């Protein structure tokens, strides 16, 4: 087996991409478990009544709590969340997922702009394969 530096993965070179691996697992464990709890209707109700109070049940970092309150989805991913978990927040807010996809996009897109990009054939793979390719692009 080839040796590997502890903090590097082959896919780290893919731009604008957050992979749920052992690193993000550790960073985002409580944040993701909080998101997951919103699968339950009674938890959604409790969260809706007082978001900050509800989050106290989970030993998340202050930054993570703030990103939840702000619905700052890209920050949530940077802090270890996975998109399938942040979905639970979007669903709780009764928003279409394209709102989240647009807010995460760089540059940011509105719901309509994201829809239009997809209707136009999606975000092209060309120029988006690697950080290096993006810089040259």
């Amino acid at each position, binding site marked *: 087996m080839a040796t590997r530096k502890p903090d590097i993965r*082959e896919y780290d070179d893919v731009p604008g*991409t*957050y992979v749920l691996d052992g690193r993000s697992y550790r960073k985002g464990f409580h944040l993701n478990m909080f998101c997951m709890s919103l699968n*339950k209707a009674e938890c959604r109700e409790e969260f809706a009544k007082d978001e900050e109070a509800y989050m106290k049940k989970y030993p998340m970092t202050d930054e993570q709590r703030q990103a939840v309150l702000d619905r700052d989805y890209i920050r949530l991913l940077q802090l270890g969340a996975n*998109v399938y978990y942040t979905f639970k927040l979007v669903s709780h807010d009764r928003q279409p997922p394209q709102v989240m*996809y647009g807010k995460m*996009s760089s540059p940011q897109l509105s719901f309509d702009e994201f829809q239009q990009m997809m*209707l136009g054939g999606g975000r092209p793979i060309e120029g988006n394969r690697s950080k290096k390719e993006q810089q040259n692009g």
Partner: protein
Amino acid sequence: MARLIAGMGTSHVPGVGAAMDNGKTGEAYWTELFKGFETLRGWHAKNVPDVTIIVFNDHATFYALDNYATFTLGVGEEFQPADEGWGRRQVPIVKGHPELAWHLVESLMAEEFDMAVSGNLEVDHGLTVPLSIAYDQPSEWPTRVIPLCVNVIQHPQPTALRCYKLGEAIGRAIASWDEDITVGIWGTGGLSHQLGGERAGVVNPEFDKAFLDNLVADPMANTRISHAEFIREAGAEGIEMIMWNVMRGALGEKVKEVCRLYHIPVSATAYGGIILEAE
């Protein structure tokens, strides 16, 4: 003897289920896709197997980071559609086939696939949307279902080759079941899509087309795609395509392509659908 009649590959985008559940399929956004489903549903109406093995993934619904398994077989009598955060889908309860499911567990374990087993699996859109795509809105699903849940959320995930080999072992298990029943197998998820990150919305029609072509004529080519290549070329969530390899592996060497659908966009996804008959 049990006979595997066909496989289907299909994306399982939750938006498709939501469009059906909320009566929106007549809207301009959806008409072309649902027109395409007519061909697929026409085939399914004439080819309902007694049991269908549905290879799908859970999306932070039943499994979370505290505990998860790479491959799980559902051995329950029935499976409840899950609340994934917006309430349960109002679709029929999924009826299982515990006898065949346990035969699969025994056969696969004997072939050194160490399966997790669940008796109370609740199934999310990954499993119910393909049923809706195939059978529309019946009062009960016409086939019994054995859920095979694959972890494609938390890395490391099983390799594309491992998924194919699991499929081959499932094919052998079905062939060894001494009961005169028909079986189908579906691989779900994909095709290229990425939901998270600044690159959200990336799709790759060339990659998808090659994957579909290889699925028919050169399935081993799809077993040589690494996780990093999937992420790079098909998007972080495009890696779900490895579940199609389980389906293809079960069907044996030669298949006949019955129909193929490809449509961009469905939400942030390139939709792909294919039916392959076992030869």
